[in-house]
């Protein structure tokens, strides 16, 4: 290989920095063959990039009412597990390369990121438990208003409405973002007036225990922050430089890819599920050359947009079912506030309709929450296992 050709390629690299990475096939070829990099793993690496891209394309091509739904989040976790598994295989197939610098440092960095993700998994587990608590409150509402399966066509009387209203108020308070919980108790009186219009709510043991209950549900200390954790995961996540790619025989790329996937998945989980100090201001600087960049960036943008919408700004989690739950229960609560007894046929029909909608949400949650919890736990286990393997091989 004439030396001049090689020099011609390396010069623009050093001048133009990271945007001119040997990402295009022709450049990869011309970079790798004169240096004697193995063409064998090029297929493997490229296939990995493509797989990641395909999977995220699938995730990104859902309509907006499916985005961030429970089934979608479960799919997201599946995608992560698949990518992680393939990544593991790549590392295994390139074992000899893995132990040499700078690969060992890059892997150590990746392992550090994954450890930080473990705490996010635990926080998400707490968040799922919280959602479960809300779902139990909804069950009370359904039980009261005849939405559960074992109540026959009972006529809806004042007693049932009172019961439902009580649970709806508890739900509304429980669903408010933690930082607003102080104000929430005050607002409580305004929206659901009849139940409690005294100013002695602070003495009411019921409210006290509710607020108390919320702070107990996190298994992390008060200083733990999901936002900070995400920042830490994304810390120094930079596109590998040309010399790094060469020195690692191309393996720096899948590491960067996996790091980005990890960051996005954790970010999306935090966006969807309630957790302590949810902040979504993480930057995703992925060069468009990566085939998976477009779908991930598009998802990121859509989710961010969702978080800025007026009726979702203060949501404690962007999960679609949470939105539905909040909307349905609010509507039902307003309806319950406005009814007078005896119920007109029209009102009764309306109530039954709202209850049906609420039941749909509740059933969806009941079905998917437990499997989601198991999946999050599986992600936790896989991360631990791959880290242990990584430690052993080093």
């Amino acid at each position: 290989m004439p030396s001049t050709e090689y020099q011609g390629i390396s010069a623009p690299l050093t001048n133009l920095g990271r945007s001119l990475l040997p990402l295009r096939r022709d450049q990869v070829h011309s970079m790798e063959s004169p240096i004697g990099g193995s063409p064998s793993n090029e297929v493997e690496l490229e296939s990995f990039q493509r797989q990641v891209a395909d999977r995220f394309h699938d995730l990104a091509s859902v309509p907006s009412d499916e985005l961030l739904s429970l089934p979608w989040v479960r799919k997201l976790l599946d995608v992560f597990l698949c990518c992680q598994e393939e990544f593991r295989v790549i590392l295994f197939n390139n074992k000899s390369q893995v132990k040499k610098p700078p690969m060992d440092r890059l892997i150590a960095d990746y392992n550090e990121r994954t450890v930080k993700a473990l705490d996010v998994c635990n926080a998400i587990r707490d968040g799922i438990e919280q959602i479960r608590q809300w779902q139990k409150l909804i069950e009370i509402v359904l039980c009261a208003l005849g939405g559960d399966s074992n109540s026959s066509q009972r006529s809806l009387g004042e007693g049932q409405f009172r019961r439902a209203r009580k649970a709806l108020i508890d739900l509304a308070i429980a669903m408010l973002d933690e930082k607003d919980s102080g104000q929430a108790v005050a607002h409580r009186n305004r929206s659901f007036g009849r139940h409690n219009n005294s100013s002695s709510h602070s003495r009411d043991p019921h409210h006290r225990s509710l607020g108390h209950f919320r702070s107990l549900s996190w298994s992390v200390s008060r200083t733990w922050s999901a936002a900070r954790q995400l920042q830490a995961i994304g810390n120094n996540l930079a596109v590998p430089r040309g010399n790094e790619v060469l020195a690692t025989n191309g393996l720096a790329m899948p590491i960067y890819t996996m790091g980005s996937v990890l960051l996005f998945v954790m970010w999306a989980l935090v966006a969807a599920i309630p957790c302590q100090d949810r902040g979504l201001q993480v930057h995703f600087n992925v060069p468009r050359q990566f085939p998976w960049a477009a779908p991930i960036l598009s998802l990121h943008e859509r989710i961010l947009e969702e978080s800025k919408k007026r009726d979702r700004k203060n949501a404690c989690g962007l999960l679609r079912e949470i939105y539905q739950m909040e909307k349905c229960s609010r509507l039902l609560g307003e309806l319950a506030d406005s009814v007078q007894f005896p119920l007109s046929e029209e009102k009764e029909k309306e109530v039954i309709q709202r209850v049906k909608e609420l039941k749909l949400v509740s059933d969806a949650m009941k079905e998917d929450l437990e499997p989601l919890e198991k999946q999050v736990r599986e992600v936790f286990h896989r991360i631990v296992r791959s880290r242990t393997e990584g430690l052993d091989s080093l």
Partner: protein
Amino acid sequence: MELPENPNKDNNGYESAEKIILRWDSTASEEAREKMIFETDRHEADLYLHAVDEIQRSLSNASISNNTNAAAAVAVDDQSKVNSTIQIAMARLEDEFRNILMTHSSALEADSLFDPSSSSFSASSHHELEEDDSVSNEDSSHNDLLRLQFQHCESSDSSTFRSTSSIREVDLMPIEAICDLHAIATRMISSGYLRECIQVYGSVRKSAIDSSFRKLGIEKLSIGDIQRLEWEALESKIRRWIRAAKVCVRILFASERKLCEQIFESVGTDIDDACFMETVKGPAIQLFNFPEAISISRRSPEKLFKILDLHDALMDLLPDIEAVFDSKSSESIRVQAAEILSRLAEAARGILSEFESAILREPSRVPVPGGTIHPLTRYVMNYISLISDYKQTLIELIMSKPSTGLRYSGDQSTPDMEFAELEGKTPLALHLIWIIVVLQFNLEGKSKHYRDASLAHLFIMNNVHYIVQKVKGSPELREMIGDDYLRKLTGKFRQAATSYQRATWVSVLYCLRDEGLHVSGSFSSGVSKSALRERFKTFNAMFEEVHRTQATWLIPDTQLREELRISISEKLIPAYRSFLGRFRSHIESGKHPENYIKYSVEDLETAVLDFFEGYPISHQHLRRRSQ
């Protein structure tokens, strides 16, 4: 507490019941809000409960009569009214339920948790670690292994937890409260308000458990927090966790379980279970987060023993965990505990393996002055003595043979081990032997950094001897290493001693040989005086040099030092004595004999006592032969 049935007064009974219920509607009157029935008056409480029963009875009557009565429309109206009354009653009962719970839901009493009589905590004394004496850490800057400091593991806590060797339920609240709660729960559940009941119960009891957790010192630490902590800090947290976990599982959770069973006795299937899980699932997960984080943390040799402690504690607790969490809904907790246990085992294995590699790689090149025992040797032998203390656990955990060196590779850069002679040994024993093999391999490498070959041999002798002494000093270690290998090691240091002697003394004693001193084959008196003088001069110079140098060398073990000196003397003294005897006259008959016969036999005997003391000597120390 049944009221006598009075069907004729049915309506009146219902009306007065309704009145009672409405009187206590907290949405309707300030007074109703301010007072709690069950705090006020036993009689009031009973009346209220009867009222609820009455309403419930009429509800079921109404639904019965609904099926038979033609005036269904009227009945429906009544039913709606009754429903409304029931709801008011249930809302009230919920508040009362919560109130009774909160009154009796503080943290576990101090005397349930702490044992006031015992004044010191008995640390498992056989896990005490040796203080590392005379460590010379010349390479401490880049060698984690050498920087290790062993500490005595004593607890400095002034109070101790009560003995928690088995499940012991305590009464979490007075029996009257439990009866009231039971009475309320029964009525709530039979009216279909089970969910509210569980929710209230769970939320209040959870806060009680949280208080107990704080009292027990259980912290909310994230995995990141634990990664950032120094190991010493973690060690004490592990100790604390082990003590707290025993109290949690055997006393706290078990008592909560009993409380649920009492309050929700015969109230429905598995309701006590649901309440128990509602209460305890979160705290249990929080409790187990800590050992899980430890099992995931980075592995390094100093962590082995605390991790084994944690493993053993959890293993010990497992049957009780399974007993307390024995329902279907608590499966995830049992599973998590078992997972953590196996991860801790894996961590222990990984640490041992990491330890073995670290010994092999330990890179310090600066030779230990005086050829004495290398800090690495001390550290490794202390470590494996401790391992033999944990033999019971480790024998179960270590299941595979050491991976390197199983096949003779002929590669000089790695040690190898012949397994033929090691038949029938447990994997743990093989690992310990392997560790000693690797240690020796490393020491051999280090010995090559001595410029003086004699010192290199001395170094090996000292260190292998130390290994032998440590093995002999621990019955468990000795039993695992086996006397065969011990013999091999003994032979090794004896051979090093021999090599040393050869390296130093052959040339010295060469001066005292007979050949070359007699001239012209003449049998009678032909001794070359000049050659003889040369010999004496050379001998003196050599001996002085050896004496000066090797006095600064060190053999720490007294007995070994003595033995080697005796061995030297046994060769040196007779040779010198005989040499003197045969040839002194020739020197003394010439000029300045004192320049040549500097030392008497006694002088040499005394001088040998200076060897291997580790102190430099002054020149005047060697007494000149005075005449």
